[in-house]
């Protein structure tokens, strides 16, 4: 390969010409010659699935070649989440199956925690050990002292098991480390959250406003597709980001905001929209509460005021406010997804919700639609015991508006010095690598050392598995049934996942693991079906279809009960808020002791020689979980630190040079990271893609590649409303040499 070919692969970053052999397929089709084409007619079997590489859960088909190996995975045309088009991660999902570094058999720790010395065990022994320890914790501390941390499809089964066990201590990091503030803010305002997939009607919008949301780099498939459709139709995109994101590059207006000042911009937009009388008067009058208070409150927040804080010129703030108004109600001020940034995130998202309300976009075409979900029959299980303690009893009075358990609070409750209301003594961690997910790794490790039991369930030897007492290897989504996917979306729909191929190694499905463990805990009555497909068939038959039909279709879309995707003209809408109206002024937050209207608070700024650490996504990876996937690693196998050319010149740092990052608390990154000098980032910030810098040697492709943002995030600003972990107040500087370590330059 020539150097030019390597140059042009910067976007499809690769390590160069390495035929790793791992996962490489035998040539099936010699299609370059006409003779080869004739050989192509092979008998191809396809199996329905929905993807598990990210939370979007696109439905598709798995194709196998004539040798029975997985050939490709493509989207199901009927599926609303993907419209027949998978994203790179879904297309590369095959690598999750063929990754030779997968967990292969149950493991039991034999030396002290974290030393990673394990012995192989049978499922019977491993599950028996877990059950004994769980019973011990329950009798000594109460069943609530057993906590479940979970993400993905396994959640359904492990949650059932925990509830049957008597513990409601069940947390998903997708809440307090990601979208919690947005869901609470929208619930406080509209009485309803924005769900997943989000109910943003981007397809028909005339104006899409993205605040730090990097659609296109976050590959939330349907959203990316709809943004592209909107571009085709001439929609205006306004992007607010200190980084020239891909979306910024598609935008009519890019507002290169000073980081951490979004609230000031939002308040000045609200000011501008109210005082220029741009707001939807009829909508506000009919549906909203607290307009007068809001109007009075935002009076001082002029565009001139915001200019001094945000560095965005008043003229640009005014112009963009006018653009939104012109598009109203077909305008979306996007709620974002990963929004735990500065610790006042719920309030920032409240400002976003208020803007949408003023523009009349909620419930309107091109704004936010009303979702529909298929109501699948659920099999009647024995009642769950009422848990004697809920997670909130660990820290009474804290995070009063959190509607879901806060994972970081449960970690804090595992550390005795924090004097929790009850101690968390056991963790079951499924499909989430807490070491990379939860900021302040040192705190997480301290918590782990206080546990009586740590069980890690995963497909890969992630960092968390190294700290576990028992490691349970789950099979991938390509090898199993899972619960029927039920939406929400514009139309109610169901999707089936079934095994596309044989199960590799001594791995098991989430359903099987939960059921077998339930037997050892005497809770098998909560898992009455021996095989999950029997339950699925029962459920599907109750709903007028069957497993057999779904195996053929993969996806089934139903019509809505009523033509109510949007509010009808003058429809009387009852919102699920205290007042039954959209609450511009939140009586709910006021009652909980918080600001009823969002307030701008200045956030810490970097000191000289330090830069704000901004992190984000790459379209070919999901969190840290895909970092070792051979197909996706081939597209991007390390992250790089983006540095503005002016800053790089000052430091004498060049593109492709490897450096270490050091944060404000003197934490130096374990691994060096490649520099990318680029105009795409502000001079007061640096940017890295999340999910790299793995320290787990068993993951041979990603070990030591790039830097972990989580390791650099030690200053965590917790949202007092709902416990979200604000992670964008960390500052890093550069270390160009580290004693005893050499890197390629």
């Amino acid at each position, binding site marked *: 390969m020539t150097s030019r070919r390597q140059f042009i692969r910067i976007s499809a970053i690769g390590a160069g010409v390495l035929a790793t052999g791992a*996962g490489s397929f035998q040539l099936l089709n010699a299609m370059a010659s006409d003779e080869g084409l004739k050989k192509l007619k092979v008998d191809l079997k396809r199996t329905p699935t929905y993807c598990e590489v990210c939370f979007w859960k696109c439905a598709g088909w798995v194709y196998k070649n004539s040798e029975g190996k997985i050939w490709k995975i493509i989207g199901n045309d009927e599926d609303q989440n993907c419209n027949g088009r998978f*994203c790179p991660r879904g297309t590369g999902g095959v690598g999750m199956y063929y990754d030779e570094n997968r967990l292969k058999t149950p493991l039991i720790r034999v030396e002290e925690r974290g030393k990673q010395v394990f012995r192989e065990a049978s499922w019977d022994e491993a599950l028996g050990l877990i059950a004994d320890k769980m019973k011990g914790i329950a009798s000594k501390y109460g069943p609530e002292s057993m906590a479940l941390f979970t993400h993905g499809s396994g959640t359904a089964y492990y949650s059932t098991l925990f509830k049957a066990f008597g513990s409601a201590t069940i947390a998903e990091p997708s809440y307090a480390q990601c979208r919690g503030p947005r869901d609470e803010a929208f619930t406080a305002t509209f009485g309803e959250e924005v769900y997943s997939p989000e109910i943003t009607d981007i397809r028909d919008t005339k104006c899409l406003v993205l605040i730090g949301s990097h659609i296109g780099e976050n590959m939330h498939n349907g959203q990316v597709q709809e943004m592209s459709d909107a571009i*085709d139709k001439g929609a205006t995109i306004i992007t607010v980001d200190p980084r020239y994101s*891909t979306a910024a590059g598609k935008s009519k207006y890019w507002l290169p905001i000073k980081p951490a000042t979004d609230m000031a911009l939002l308040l000045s937009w609200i000011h501008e929209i109210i005082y220029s009388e741009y707001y939807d008067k009829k909508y506000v009058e009919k549906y909203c509460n607290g307009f007068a208070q809001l109007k009075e409150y935002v009076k001082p927040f002029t565009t001139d005021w915001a200019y001094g804080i945000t560095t965005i010129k008043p003229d640009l703030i005014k112009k963009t406010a006018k653009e939104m108004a012109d598009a109203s109600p077909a305008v979306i001020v996007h709620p974002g997804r990963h929004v735990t940034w500065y610790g006042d995130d719920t309030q920032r998202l409240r400002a976003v919700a208020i803007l949408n309300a003023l523009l009349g976009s909620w419930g309107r075409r091109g704004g936010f639609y009303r979702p529909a979900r298929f109501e699948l029959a659920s099999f009647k299980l024995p009642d769950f015991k009422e848990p004697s303690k809920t997670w909130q009893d660990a820290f009474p009075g804290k995070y009063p508006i959190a509607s879901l358990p806060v994972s970081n609070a449960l970690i804090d409750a595992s550390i005795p010095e924090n004097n929790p209301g009850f101690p968390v003594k056991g963790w079951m961690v499924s499909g989430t690598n807490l070491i990379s997910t939860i900021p302040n790794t040192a705190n997480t490790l301290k918590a782990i050392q206080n546990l009586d039991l740590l069980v890690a369930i995963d497909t890969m030897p992630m960092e968390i598995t190294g700290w576990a007492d028992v490691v349970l290897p789950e099979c991938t989504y390509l090898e199993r049934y899972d619960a029927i996917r039920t939406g929400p979306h514009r139309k109610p729909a169901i999707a089936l996942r079934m095994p596309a191929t044989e199960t590799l190694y001594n791995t098991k499905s989430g359903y099987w693991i939960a059921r077998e463990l339930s037997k050892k805990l005497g809770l098998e009555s909560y898992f009455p079906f021996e095989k999950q497909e029997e339950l699925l068939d029962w459920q599907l038959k109750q709903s007028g279809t069957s497993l057999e039909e779904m195996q053929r279709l993969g996806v089934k879309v139903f019509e809505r009960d009523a033509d109510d995707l949007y509010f009808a003209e003058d429809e009387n809408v009852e919102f699920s808020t205290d007042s039954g109206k959209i609450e511009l002024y939140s009586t709910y937050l006021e009652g909980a002791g918080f600001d009823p209207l969002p307030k701008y608070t200045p956030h810490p700024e970097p000191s000289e020689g330090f830069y704000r650490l901004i992190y984000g996504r790459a379209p070919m990876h999901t969190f840290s979980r895909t970092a070792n996937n051979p197909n996706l690693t081939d597209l991007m196998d390390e992250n790089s630190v983006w540095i503005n050319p002016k800053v790089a010149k000052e430091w004498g740092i060049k593109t492709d040079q490897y450096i270490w990052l050091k944060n404000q608390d003197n934490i130096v990154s374990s691994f060096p990271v490649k520099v990318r000098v680029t105009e795409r980032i*502000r001079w007061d910030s640096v940017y890295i893609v999340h999910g790299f810098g793995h320290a787990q040697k068993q993951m041979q492709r990603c070990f030591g590649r790039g830097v972990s943002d989580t390791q650099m995030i030690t200053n965590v600003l917790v949202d007092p409303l709902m416990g979200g972990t604000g992670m964008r107040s960390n500052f890093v500087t550069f270390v160009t040499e580290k004693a005893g370590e050499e890197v390629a330059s």
Partner: protein
Amino acid sequence: MRYAMAVDTRKCVGCSDCVVACQTENNVPIGYCRDWVVEVIDGTYPQLEIEIRSERCNHCVNAPCVRCCPTGASHFAEGGIVLVAQNKCIGCGACIASCPYDARYPHPSGYVDKCTFCVHRIKNGMLPACVDVCPTKCLYFGDLDDPNSDVSVVLKKRKSKTLIPEAGTQPQLYFLI
């Protein structure tokens, strides 16, 4: 018949789905690729422009790779698609050196490989895998001799450019700008 592809640089987000879809569809070994993504940045912060392009073989009308191939392995197939007959290719690499777009790579099995416009699919009435998968629908494919084909329609409607036109290869990969 004249097959061509157009890439909408305004819609492409550079996700590289085209790359991985091609790799799986065509069994391209890991570490190699027939298509790739290029990002070009212009300007100084905050006055910036970005162009993102999904690139591949340009299936040139005047293809230097076909002209320089000593064995006739590189050839034109129906619709002007440039193909390599693997059984005739000796892996000498002359075509790799001659291609101004760097579209070819030496396959570990000993022959030279590149984009085929998924000729095996288009013969069966399907679109190339990259076009079929693209989440942003930024890729358009079809027959330029057919005024109603996707690619003809979009090229008529939008401004476009080709890469390195001065090389005189008459490339058939167009970029909508």
